[in-house]
């Protein structure tokens, strides 16, 4: 007889929607909308932290590849906080002034407060990337920080602090790690962890690469030996087992940077696409959660069309053309062209970058993300760029060390460069590396966080993306993995029907807002929403509110306004 608790909440939610959200929809402008822009609000937001790349005359390679950033709601207040990763002590670097990571708490008014020390996430190692997820399913997002050195797993205590549980968890993976991806490779409902390994490196292995004036520059990684990446299975008790060997991940030493977990063959098991620098990229196909087959060559995503291994850095995956299959993107270094791999539905891909190729010819790409910044339903694309060699301009007139951000809007089957009309920040140059997307001001459009090597980061506020209608989802799995990675969200609004697979990882060294914003363009109603959870459960929802966030609990078939 007892009614489920959620029903009153749902009714209240819908009432609230009817009163508040509908007028916004009626007020849609009938004249052409002004361009959606991104405004640099870093200073206004109170973010004063600056990355220290530890650049030395010896030009140690780790100096030029970091670092990452994350949107994370560490205090579960429904507002995205921000994490930046910094360099630190290593065998080649002893800081002369204190260097630390930064965790900024969201003040809900567009400003942030530095809570790093209190939270206990200062770091101390030579930091690279960050991946946030609730690995222990306690309702609070934890942090995994990759380093040149030993990685760190910070468990969120739920009280505004973190504790280092690396040793207990068994995920230190010493060496040089870059990107980390939380995903559930064996569909057991627990978040496993993939950690990209870069080359074997220490101070003594630094190869001398110098110009004719004996100035050292950062060497091409070709000079260094590849290392196998790690896959850790979550045991569900706060510990992990390194299953790299038994899953065959260890059979493929790489020089791995970006990694994304997605399902390229729609078999319900999450695969991994991993970018390698000066080596072929890896496409690991998940064979029933037991092992991975590396099929990059046959799939056509390992090399350039000329058969050259490129300098793969950032990656992402999304179904950009709405055909129901996950496409892939990888950014490379200047003159190598970036690749937009269209999924041919049989584990083969064709590289069709089109306008992206022309726009990025002289750029070197790191952080990148498919994201629907204009809420028109399809994924657009933002690229963060910067050359790793700070001397590059001395020997190449066309290539710059600091490079611009580039924004592409999805035109249906193609991408169009709209950077010029998207804000003054696109006219500036940066030594861009990490990039995360998230709605830090909860206004229904995705903002952007960029971490730059050796300089201040950027917080870019999306102005106008919410002119189209939207629905924000906070997915709350009960049986599936806590990040809902692998969930397939399908929604229909009038004639618009879209599907989105929730990927894990993506971009470069960075971690995104875990919520999903579903854009519906000018439509005024979502006819239905379906969540196909990784567990196999399917929730179908109708009568949904607009222009607000809702919480969807797996198997409960309910949604509540936050």
């Amino acid at each position, binding site marked *: 007889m007892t009614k489920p608790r959620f029903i009153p909440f749902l009714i209240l939610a819908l009432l609230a929607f009817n009163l508040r959200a509908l007028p916004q929809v009626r007020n849609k402008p009938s004249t052409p909308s002004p361009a959606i822009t991104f405004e640099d609000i870093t200073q206004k937001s109170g973010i004063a932290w600056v990355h220290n790349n530890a650049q030395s005359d010896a030009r140690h390679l780790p100096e030029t590849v970091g670092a990452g950033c994350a949107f994370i709601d560490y205090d579960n207040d429904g507002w995205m906080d921000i994490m930046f990763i910094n360099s630190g002590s290593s065998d080649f670097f002893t800081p002369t002034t204190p260097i630390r990571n930064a965790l900024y708490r969201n003040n809900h008014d567009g400003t942030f407060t530095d809570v790093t020390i209190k939270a206990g996430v200062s770091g101390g190692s030579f930091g690279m990337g960050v991946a946030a997820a609730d690995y222990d399913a306690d309702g609070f997002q934890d942090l995994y920080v990759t380093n040149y050195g030993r990685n760190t797993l910070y468990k969120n205590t739920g009280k505004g602090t973190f504790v280092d549980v690396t040793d207990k968890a068994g995920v230190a993976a010493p060496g040089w790690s870059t990107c980390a991806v939380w995903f559930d490779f064996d569909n057991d409902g627990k978040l496993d962890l993939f950690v990209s390994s870069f080359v074997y490196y220490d101070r003594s292995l630094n190869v001398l690469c110098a110009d004719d004036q004996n100035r050292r520059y*950062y060497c*091409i990684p070709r000079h260094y030996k590849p290392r196998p990446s790690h896959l850790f299975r979550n045991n569900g008790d706060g510990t992990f087992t390194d299953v790299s060997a038994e899953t065959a991940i260890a059979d493929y030493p790489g020089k791995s940077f970006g990694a994304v977990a997605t399902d390229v063959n729609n078999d319900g098991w999450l695969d991994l696409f991993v970018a390698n620098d000066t080596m072929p990229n890896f496409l690991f196909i998940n064979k029933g959660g037991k092992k991975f087959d590396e099929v990059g*060559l046959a799939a056509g995503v390992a090399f350039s069309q000329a058969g050259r291994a490129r300098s793969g850095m950032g990656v992402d995956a999304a179904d950009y053309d709405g055909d129901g299959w996950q496409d892939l993107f990888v950014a490379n270094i200047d003159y190598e062209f970036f690749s937009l791999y269209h999924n041919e539905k049989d584990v083969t891909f064709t590289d069709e970058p089109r306008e992206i190729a022309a726009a990025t010819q002289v750029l070197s790409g790191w952080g990148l993300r498919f994201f629907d910044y204009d809420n028109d339903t399809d994924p657009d694309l933002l690229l963060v760029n910067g050359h790793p060699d700070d001397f590059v301009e001395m020997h190449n007139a066309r290539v710059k060390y600091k490079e611009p951000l580039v924004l592409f809007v999805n035109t249906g089957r193609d991408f169009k460069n709209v950077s010029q009309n998207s804000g003054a920040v696109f006219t500036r140059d940066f030594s861009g590396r990490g990039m995360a997307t998230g709605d830090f001001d909860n206004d229904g459009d995705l903002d952007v966080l960029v971490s730059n090597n050796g300089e201040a980061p950027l917080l870019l506020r999306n102005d106008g993306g919410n002119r189209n209608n939207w629905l924000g989802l906070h997915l709350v799995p009960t049986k599936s993995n806590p990040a809902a990675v692998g969930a397939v969200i399908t929604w229909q609004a009038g004639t618009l029907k879209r599907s989105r697979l929730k990927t894990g990882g993506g971009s470069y060294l960075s971690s995104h807002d875990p919520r999903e914003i579903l854009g519906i363009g000018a439509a005024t109603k979502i006819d239905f929403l379906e969540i196909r959870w990784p567990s196999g459960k399917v929730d179908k929802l109708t009568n949904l509110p607009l222009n607000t966030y809702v919480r969807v609990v797996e198997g409960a078939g309910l949604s509540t306004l936050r």
Partner: protein
Amino acid sequence: MILIVMRRLLTTVCLILLAGYQPLHSKSMQTRNDLIERLENVAKLIRDDRLSDAERQLSTILRSNSKQPDALNLLGAIRAKQKRFDEAEKLFSSAVSANASLVSARMNLVQLYLIQSKPQNAISELNQVLRLQPENEEAFDRLSQLLLKEKRVDEFISLVEPVKSSRSISFSLLVSLGDAYLEKRNAVKAEENFRLALAQQSDDADAILGLAQAAHLRGDTALASSYLARAKGATVKSANTLHRFALVAFAAGRFEEANLALTEAVKLKPDEPAFYVFLGTTWLKKPDLVEAEQAFRRALELNSDDSTAQMYLGYTLMLQGKYPAARELLEKSLVKESTVPQTFYYLGLISQEEGDDQAAIQHFRKTLQLLPSYVEVHGALGRSYLNLKDYPQAKAELELAVKLNPNDTQAHYQLAVLYARLKDPQRAQEQMQIVERLKEAARAPQKPTP
């Protein structure tokens, strides 16, 4: 330009006018002298630009003898000066009809034809002059220049070669003769003439470069390089010489030097589209696609119909991933030059990049129709068939590609992909090993990139 030619025409008229008369009997001579005097006076009036007075006097002469060839010739000169070219041509022709051996009228016709861009008529007239006056140096020089310009190389050689022993040939003509033999791929005769030229001007860059070209033609790259080095030390005065230097340097694979020479050449001669096209190709070799694009665009600014520039610009844009613009240019170049295999090949590559492999295959097939020995096309065809999942056709084309060119890295790579898809990992690996080997061999010195 027309003014210069006009001045020259008038001078020709006046100079030749007085030279064409034979001695006559005393009475006739008196009459004749009177006529000459009147004609001289007319010539002076024309020189002074008093055309009405000149024409009045000529009318008087022509009233008494309507076919007086010299008067007709001078009236033609007046009409030419008035830019009434059709009338001028009729008058010169009438003069020639009245006196077939009137060289001055024929030379005026030559000038007129050149003004009217009728080089073939000019050549015909000059041949007539030389038939009448084999020693006419001006006619000889002008005919030789025209034949060269019109690329009538055989006639040029036939004109110049016989007189080499009997007449002192100018330095520039000897160089031209050397060039003509280069055109005929006769390295020995080319060398002979460049050496004769060098005997006249020992440090002339054109002659030295000609020798380099001849050496290159004979396959003696070492000698060609030594001439190239010697030419670098010589004083280079003209854009054409710099262009020649670039040609030699380019053929020797010294693209940087070719590029520098052409960069200088276009400064000296900024309105020559061919120089910009060549400059663009040297930028492609560096490679600097942005500079290449600028050079080809400049060539097209100077001559928008230059199909070679269109093709190269299309190719450059293709390399930059600017496919729609590249396609437009390549298709435009086909309007004028529809049988250039590269154009179809590049169009095929663009279609391939844009995911239209059926169209790509059509372009590649057309390329092979035009040039069956275009081996790269088989690799490209293989890739398109691979994209279309037509594995038997892909296999046939790719295996043919690597058979025809075992160093075709791309074809080996595509074969590796094919074998991997055909679940033949061993052969796939073998192909990738070949790819790695070829890449290692071709690897340039390290560039500091990650």
